[in-house]
């Protein structure tokens, strides 16, 4: 089973390698960098939601922790970006542990609301703790990160860097789900009673995966800070948490590829919509970015009502069905 995922990674690797040769425009590379950052957070969220079956509506807070740890430590303490990123990871993991232990005893709606509350509180802190976060004014002059002495300060370089991290994240994710731990998680999702009866410490696993997904989010946040070189509380609001959940759900909850697909698709969606709006104008319909919110909501609702496995899941099912049909046809002919 597993090899397909690793083949997929190879395909993605080739696509990433080739992309800057085809896409010569830094602007689109920049958009794809944001897609990569969302991907990273969504992979972590997908491990939590799709595999461990636990919802989090506060994941933007972990992105924020990563971003602010990176921002604060590089700007105010003068640490290197890598050290700051590592510190962010530990900080996120620590916060996830503290919040996760009580929160993950809760189920379903309670957990959703608890994480939502947690996310809101952290956002309020980011706005109010001006001495650390710079408050609404934010932190600027965050340095670029460098790798082997090369500063990643162009879009092409950062594009490769961010997608390389996504590939590493995918690699860890796939290893995990095809391992003892991953099976334990999926078992937990299938039947918590049965999983327990086989010796799986369900509570501990939920917390571990929550911590892991917070680490993914934190790295995504650190990269954001090094890419934009400026952070303020805006992008780490509850709305962004909801958007991440939307990405995972639209792509397909139960497949990591779904999360990747959903993240890329929804990051690019405003681009599509704005270029469509130019076409719409020709035929006399005025499309305004005001409608974006509505379109996001409609897409999410339609997917959840009619394609609960998400676009990627639905896509996969369709291909399966098609393959089955072809096979049967071939057999019938022989």
């Amino acid at each position, binding site marked *: 089973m597993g090899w397909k995922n690793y083949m997929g990674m190879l395909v993605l690797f080739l696509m990433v390698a080739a992309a800057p040769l085809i896409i010569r425009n830094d602007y*689109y590379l920049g958009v794809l960098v944001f897609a990569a950052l969302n991907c990273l957070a969504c992979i972590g969220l997908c491990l939590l939601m799709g595999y461990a079956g636990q919802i989090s509506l506060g994941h933007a807070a972990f992105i924020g922790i990563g971003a602010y740890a990176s921002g604060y430590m590089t700007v105010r303490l003068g640490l290197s970006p890598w050290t700051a990123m590592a510190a962010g990871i530990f900080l996120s993991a620590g916060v996830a542990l503290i919040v996760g232990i009580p929160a993950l005893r809760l189920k379903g709606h309670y957990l959703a609301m608890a994480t939502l509350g947690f996310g809101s509180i952290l956002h*309020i802190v980011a706005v109010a703790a001006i001495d650390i976060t710079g408050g609404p004014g934010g932190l600027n002059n965050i340095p670029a990160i460098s790798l082997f002495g090369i500063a990643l300060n162009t879009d092409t370089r950062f594009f490769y860097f961010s997608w390389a991290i996504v590939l590493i994240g995918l690699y860890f994710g796939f290893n995990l789900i095809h391992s003892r731990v991953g099976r334990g998680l999926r078992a937990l999702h299938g039947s918590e009673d049965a999983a327990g009866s086989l010796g799986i410490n369900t509570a501990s696993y939920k917390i571990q995966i929550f911590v892991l997904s917070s680490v993914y989010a934190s790295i995504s946040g650190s990269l954001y800070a090094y890419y934009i070189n400026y952070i303020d509380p805006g992008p780490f609001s509850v709305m962004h948490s909801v958007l991440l959940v939307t990405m995972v759900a639209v792509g397909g909850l139960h497949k990591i590829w779904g999360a990747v697909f959903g993240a890329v698709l929804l990051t690019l969606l405003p681009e*599509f919509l704005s270029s469509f709006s130019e076409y719409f104008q020709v035929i006399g319909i005025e499309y305004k970015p005001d409608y974006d919110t509505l379109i996001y909501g409609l897409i999410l609702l339609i997917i959840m009502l009619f394609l609960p496995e998400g676009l990627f899941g639905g896509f996969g099912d369709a291909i399966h069905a098609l393959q089955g049909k072809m096979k049967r046809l071939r057999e019938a002919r022989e």
Partner: protein
Amino acid sequence: MKKSLLMIGVVIVLLLMSGSVLFAGEKDYRVGCVFAITGKASWLGEPEMKTVEMIAREINEAGGINGHKLKLFIEDSQGDNTRAVNAVKKLIKKNNVCAIIGPSRSGTSMAVIPIVQKAQIPLISCAGAEVIVVPVEERKWVFKTPQKDSDCVRRIYEHMIEKGIKDIGIISGTTGFGNAGRKQLKDIAAEYKINIVADETYSPADTDMTAQLVKIKNAGAMALVNWSIVPAQSIVPQNMKHLKMDIQLYQSHGFGNVKYAKAAGAAGNGIIFPAGRLLAVDSLPDDNPQKAVLLGYKNKYETKFNETVSTFGGHAYDSLWLVANALKAVGDNPEKIREQLEKSELVGTGGIFKLSPMDHNGLDKTAFEMLTVQDGKFVVLKD
């Protein structure tokens, strides 16, 4: 699985390429604009967008600049940093603009500074916070047209000294604008020997500032400065009225939208705030050098869009004219535009601009007029 991924890749690439087909005529002067047209800060971006579209049309109908048409590329930041960064990149890399106007908000302006600095494209921000152009050594390519918040603070403090007010409370909205103003208020207070006895904040989503106001009242403040740009600021005078607080309320130039005065209702009467003269053009003396420009803009805007002008649209007006004049003088080379901007002079809506290599704003405190609210209207303060 492999096939499907490949398919997705192909579709994405195709869609991306389709967008770049649209381009303007080769000889046009291309200027980019990034405004918060939608989203929570749309009250800033909407008048800005309307203003630049109106002026650009006017310029083009008059034959363009040096025979070139002025082509505007307007992007919506939705008041969001990520989108603003994307938008500025798009303008620079995809639309090849020679200068950028905007963004509307202080936070988004800060977010895009590194990009224009690196790409070496001049940017004229329409946002208030002074840090956008200070320190000038690190802001070689960045300019802004709204008046400086430090000058606004000075005008308020001077007025207070005149009235014998020493102990004041401050309350600010938790946005980039509010935060920057709060810092300036605290930094400059000592210069005027003013005591800040209470320092409170409220979030843009806040609905009731009673708690903050009671604290300010108890701290013995003789006047209150409400520094904010969000609509929630008009709740402060209402709450004060409900609490029967009768100390003088000062607002910042972020109050410069007549809708805010209307939303404050009767409670708004008597608020004092420094702002550009655009808001009170009717009560200006005829010999004021700005009056002609102001009246012209105001009349055109109000006839065309059937809504009251705000200072925010005025900032976009000034920015666009600065760029248009520079284009006229030196053509569309970004470096030359930058140099030209640094020696520009303009009688604008925000004041009389005199930019220099050391001052990328070019306004001083005389750009402000002390205004007051009278029955939901702004008038020049008489005493």
